[in-house]
């Protein structure tokens, strides 16, 4: 295994000394480094690119969050109070698109960039220049997407699922730009995924077998395969839209012999694996944090790997459960109901494993642990509502109501987003060399937990009581639930400013962190100094497999 290093990483440091642990001390780096903006534009370093991804995703998290708050402000009371229905639709659509494609996905890619090489003892990603390119595609894609809001006719207004023909024949003129921006974001994701697969398969420290890899690496490996499998399907479906809009084809236009339902099959064949793309790395993060703060090995490492793989395979077999009311034949409805119910089994296995890891541990409650524990509880609640949605006859009632909105926000906000926050608190000492503030972190945590539940729990009730999704105004019986949801949303939204404060404070100073910042942490990243120097593991570490 001879990892190819990018030119300026070559092992020519005259005064570089590598310790046995693979730590590298860069006392005098004589290489001329581009400075200022050029340094960031041209960087091929996995840590710098990881930071770029994370900062980008944080900015987008706030932009998507502002859109959500516009929606919640309009829904605070019955009536059309602040914005018109047309703009409301643009806000719900952009909120979904930005949060999925520009906030959650890049955040996980950023964590992968930073942590995968550190966790497998590699000096960098396998393809550093490609890595730079994958990142810089993102600001281009999303600047383009956001600019559609200023175009005549407004931005995308057809929901983040952009069902045809609302998104083709009946769409605003800016839709072509929307398609281009998704193409660019898709290319970025595919390239990122290829890089991650190449890194994990080729650049592990000598002696590290697949079944020795930390679970974050495992879950990301499987996620990367999912990305490579389904992003081309998304690219295909949006290209068909492009043709329908601009070149007179009729893929999705019934009047020309096309099929609007075909759009949904293609979209969800991408879309369902996509939701697992947003949750599998979260499983990896939680599987790292819980053993650390319970000071006890993960109960079932192998079964965690198996469960991740099962979820990935099943994710290709369940797509039409998003389409139970489009008029599928009975046999198809039954097939997708059965496969969907089966997903509960490996997901349950994961939750049971985390809890058995806690059992008879020696538990402390630092901020990363708090977020990870909240993840376990609230993600499981989202899993329960998912199980309810799997029951096809009942889904005829739940479908396209706020019950569904509650469900996927439970798995994505206190699920995916909390896991990202847990990861940030967990690895900040490694990134900055300082511990994040415990007091501020706890304020951030508790306000977020309260905010999230105030926002999304009442949505179960408004959905069951009959409130459809994506409406700018509602009947009076839903008023109380919406009032609470809106208050919760503003609480959650503004608490995130504390998060930014914590990060800035931590970058600028704080309690110094040693190499092994958490006493229960085991993986390789804790063998390099904190903050991790720009170049690590230029000499492969001496890896001793723990008996997983």
């Amino acid at each position, binding site marked *: 295994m001879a990892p190819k290093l990018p030119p300026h990483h070559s092992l020519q440091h005259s005064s570089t000394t590598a310790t046995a642990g693979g730590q590298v001390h860069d006392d005098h780096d004589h290489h001329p480094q581009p400075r200022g903006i050029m340094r960031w534009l041209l960087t091929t370093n996995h840590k710098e690119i990881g930071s770029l991804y994370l900062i980008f995703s944080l900015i987008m998290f706030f932009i998507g969050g502002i859109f959500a708050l516009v929606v919640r402000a309009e829904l605070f009371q*019955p*009536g059309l109070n602040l914005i018109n*229905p047309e703009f409301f639709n643009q806000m719900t659509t952009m909120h979904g698109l930005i949060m999925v494609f520009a906030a959650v996905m890049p955040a996980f890619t950023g964590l992968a960039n930073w942590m995968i090489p550190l966790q497998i003892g590699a000096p960098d990603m396998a393809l550093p220049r490609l890595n730079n390119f994958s990142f810089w595609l993102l600001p281009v894609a999303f600047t383009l997407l956001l600019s559609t809001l200023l175009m005549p006719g407004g931005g995308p*207004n*057809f929901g983040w699922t952009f*069902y045809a023909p*609302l998104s083709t*024949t*009946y769409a605003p003129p800016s839709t072509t730009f929307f398609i281009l921006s998704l193409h660019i974001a898709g290319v970025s994701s595919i390239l990122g995924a290829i890089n991650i697969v190449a890194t994990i398969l080729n650049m592990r420290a000598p002696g590290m077998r697949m079944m020795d890899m930390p679970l974050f690496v495992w879950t990301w490996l499987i996620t990367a395969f999912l990305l490579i499998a389904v992003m081309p399907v998304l690219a295909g479906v949006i290209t068909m839209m492009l043709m329908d809009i601009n070149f007179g084809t009729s893929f999705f236009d*019934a*009047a020309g012999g*096309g099929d*609007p339902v075909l759009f949904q099959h293609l979209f969800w064949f991408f879309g369902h694996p996509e939701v697992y793309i947003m949750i599998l790395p979260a499983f990896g993060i939680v599987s790292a944090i819980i053993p650390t703060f*319970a000071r006890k090995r993960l*109960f079932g*490492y192998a*079964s965690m790997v198996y469960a991740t793989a099962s979820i990935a395979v099943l994710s290709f077999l369940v797509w039409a459960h998003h389409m139970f*009311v489009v*008029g599928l034949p*009975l046999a198809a*409805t039954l097939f997708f*109901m059965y496969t969907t*119910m*089966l997903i509960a*089994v490996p997901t*349950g*296995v994961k939750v049971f494993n985390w*809890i058995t890891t*806690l059992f*008879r*541990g*020696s*538990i*402390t*409650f630092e901020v990363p642990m708090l977020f990870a*524990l909240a993840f376990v*509880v609230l993600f*499981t*609640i989202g899993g329960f509502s998912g*199980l*309810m949605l799997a029951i*096809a*006859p*009942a889904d*005829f*009632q739940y*479908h*396209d*109501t706020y019950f569904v909105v509650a469900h996927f926000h439970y798995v994505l906000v206190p699920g995916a987003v909390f896991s990202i926050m847990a990861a940030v608190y967990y690895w900040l000492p490694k990134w900055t060399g300082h511990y994040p503030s415990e007091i501020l972190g706890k304020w951030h945590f508790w306000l977020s937990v309260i905010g999230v539940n105030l926002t999304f729990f009442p949505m179960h*009730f408004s959905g*069951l*009581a*009959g409130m459809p*999704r*994506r409406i*700018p*105004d*509602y*009947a*009076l019986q839903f008023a109380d639930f919406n009032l609470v949801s809106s208050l919760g949303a503003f609480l959650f939204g503004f608490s995130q400013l504390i998060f930014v404060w914590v990060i800035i404070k931590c970058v600028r100073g704080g309690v110094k962190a040693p190499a092994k910042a958490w006493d229960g942490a085991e993986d390789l990243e804790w063998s390099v100094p904190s903050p991790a120097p720009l170049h690590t593991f230029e000499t492969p570490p001496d890896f001793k497999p723990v008996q997983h």
Partner: protein
Amino acid sequence: MRKMLALMTGGGTLFGGASLAHANGWNMPVGVTDLSAEIYTLHMTIFWICVVIGIVVFGVMFYSLFKFRRSKGAKSAHFHENTTVEVIWTAVPLLILVGMAVPATATLQKMYDASDAELDVMITGQQWRWRYEYLGEDVAFNSNMSTPRAQITGEEERGEHYLLEVDEPLVLPINRKVRFLLTADDVIHSWWVPDFAVKQDTIPGFINENWVRINEPGIYRGQCAELCGMDHGFMPIVVHAMEEDEFDQWLVERKEAAEAEAMGVDREWEMDELMERGEQVYGSICASCHQADGGGSPPAFPGLAGNQELIDDVDWHIDVVLNGVSGTAMPAFRSNLNPVELAAVVTYSRNAWGNDTGDAVQPAEIVELLE
């Protein structure tokens, strides 16, 4: 289970007072069909299963968090992996799921059996109204939201059925199996009445099937469930379920009215008659986009008041109403409205809001154009 259901709905009636439909405002309605009650039971069953699993799982979790805190001196044990435990926690959920799949499958089979219906109703979703057609009965009408704009903007106090009221409800008989055939003219909509547990997408170019047999007379309300553009939130569904003989009588009256209207095609209509009828049609069909005062909301929806193109060219005006304008939101109304309604609405918009062209378009002219 039946007894329990009766008890629960009974309780609902006690507290809610009025209809069973919205007996409680925070759970799925039991509804007024056998199937909706069955679905409610499935929903509550899976809900309680989740609650029990939740209590066990979170119970163990919070016990561990409390008991094994380092601050209380807990030392971590070193066990991991236990094949027996893992087999149990995989097999038990699997069995629960199979137990859940069996009744769910049985219910689905019933939901999919739309055979032997006694009445067929065609439901067409349009931006942003519903069209109902009683197949084989020559009765068809549009159903628009009737909540006044002033209530939405808050200038007027909101009524009890704010956003859930229409000008003409769908009328159905109780105790008869009614089959719905659902389609759409433009984008995908979804026809949903929670009390029937019927939700079905209406898809342009496709005809979906669903059915209902209502057990109790009453007024049932629902909404479009699939995002269909700007006024997605403003296309409610109201169903008026009647006793069977009452329904039969209603249907006969509607048929007679439709025939009378068809007769009216051949005679000469007075300006006043056309204006009166036209205002009514305009209010229910056109005003949602072009506004009641004819001002429109440009650029998407041009104003009609003082519109020179419209005032100058009556043939163009009729053509637009009949055939729509491709590439815009203006749909073709040739098959949605009858000749009298078409003539009346054109006449109305040529003479209202100071347009004053004096043109009275006769139904007979429209009939000629439609052929």
